[in-house]
């Protein structure tokens, strides 16, 4: 399979400088990025297999002696390329706050309790159909210092590997109908409404397990699609 990575697809991404999110002001390149051809170095990328993960790495409710507090949820979906074909054997990593909105990270010291039964990190590898599944608890909203009374909408951080280093994606999965969406400069750094919607999971009643856990579906579409004869003519 020989994929190409059209740069027009990146129009869905936020701009490097998005002043509403203040930390971008000093951490975004000020000079134009240089356009260079994709070589073997960009068209290849790390490959991980099932040896990269261990049992329960994808079940964040089973990593400690007891069960974490919070709403138990299933988060699942497919990793796809731009042709909507499955990306098998893709390493998917996630991390998140606990149900109270507190990260285990040492820098997060805001006054919400840590949960001794929750770290908030997980990983898995997609199967042959590009499918992944995590069991976790719904993360809480939390305050941050970007502007007065700033709170992040509930979200789970995702890190995904695809067919090449160009497919590499770090993103955040949001939950449907969050009332904090209009106030969040990180979510709104994606200016196209349809593109923003692709970061919001859908409530998945069909896969909700009665008396046990709600389910949310989050499909992740990575860069990379099959070259057409027309594309080849351009080279």
């Amino acid at each position: 399979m020989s994929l190409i990575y059209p740069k027009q697809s990146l129009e869905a991404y936020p701009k490097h400088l998005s002043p509403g999110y203040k930390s971008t002001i000093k951490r975004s390149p000020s000079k134009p990025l240089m356009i260079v051809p994709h070589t073997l170095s960009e068209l290849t990328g790390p490959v991980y297999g099932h040896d990269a993960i261990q049992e329960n790495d994808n079940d964040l409710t089973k990593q400690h002696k007891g069960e974490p507090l919070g709403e138990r949820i299933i988060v699942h979906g497919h990793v796809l390329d731009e042709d909507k074909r499955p990306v098998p054997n893709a390493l998917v990593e996630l991390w998140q706050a606990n149900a109270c909105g507190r990260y285990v990270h040492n820098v997060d010291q805001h006054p919400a309790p840590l949960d001794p039964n929750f770290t908030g990190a997980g990983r898995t590898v997609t199967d042959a159909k590009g499918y992944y599944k995590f069991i976790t608890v719904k993360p809480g909203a939390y305050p941050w210092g970007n502007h007065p009374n700033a709170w992040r909408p509930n979200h789970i951080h995702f890190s995904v590997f695809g067919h090449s280093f160009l497919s590499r994606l770090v993103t955040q999965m949001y939950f449907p109908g969050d009332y904090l969406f209009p106030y969040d400069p990180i979510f709104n750094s994606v200016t196209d409404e349809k593109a923003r919607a692709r970061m919001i999971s859908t409530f998945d009643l069909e896969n909700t397990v009665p008396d046990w856990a709600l389910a949310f579906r989050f499909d992740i579409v990575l860069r990379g699609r099959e070259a057409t004869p027309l594309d080849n003519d351009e080279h």
Partner: protein
Amino acid sequence: MSEITPSQTVGPFFAYGLTPNGRCEWDPNGSYSWKNTVESNLVTPDASGTRIHIEGTVRDGDGLPINDCMIEIWQADAQGRYAHGRDNRPLPNTQFKGFGRSATDKAGVYAFDTIKPGSVAGPGGKPQAPHIVVCIFSRGMLRQIYTRLYFDDEPANASDPILTMVPADRRGTLIAHKQPGADNQYRFDIRVQGGDETVFFDI
């Protein structure tokens, strides 16, 4: 219109998930309880070639160190082969993955131990000088930025098809410098913004 999932920032709290045993001096015990998938030491027992150490500081537009940054590197082995199906040449170092990850510490410093990569084919079959693809993630970065690391002791830099596209006065930002008096240690500082801003690629 393509429908890829947009990028979002890695945020300030990735370390316990992505680099738990790395340089997270944020943690009083030096590491979180979660295990690493990706290490900052890429060297495998079967890897041939010259072992090198790469270290540098990442700085923002004010020249201040970025202490919550994650650097990922992707490289060929010493024979110039990538551990990937697209590179169909047989791999001599089957365990060598060529991928590493390092968080920056409180001083904004990242570090890798790896093998010096060999030359790989470039556009039109023209050889590229030994180089490493570098990808930077951080709080305050809504999307990753890519750059390349070249080595100051490689004559092939002069004819590298990518490096020679970079204006001569900015080419130096892509060169790692071998440290005098140290064995195969290279320094590669990254300036995200400012007068001596590193060249980043739109790829």
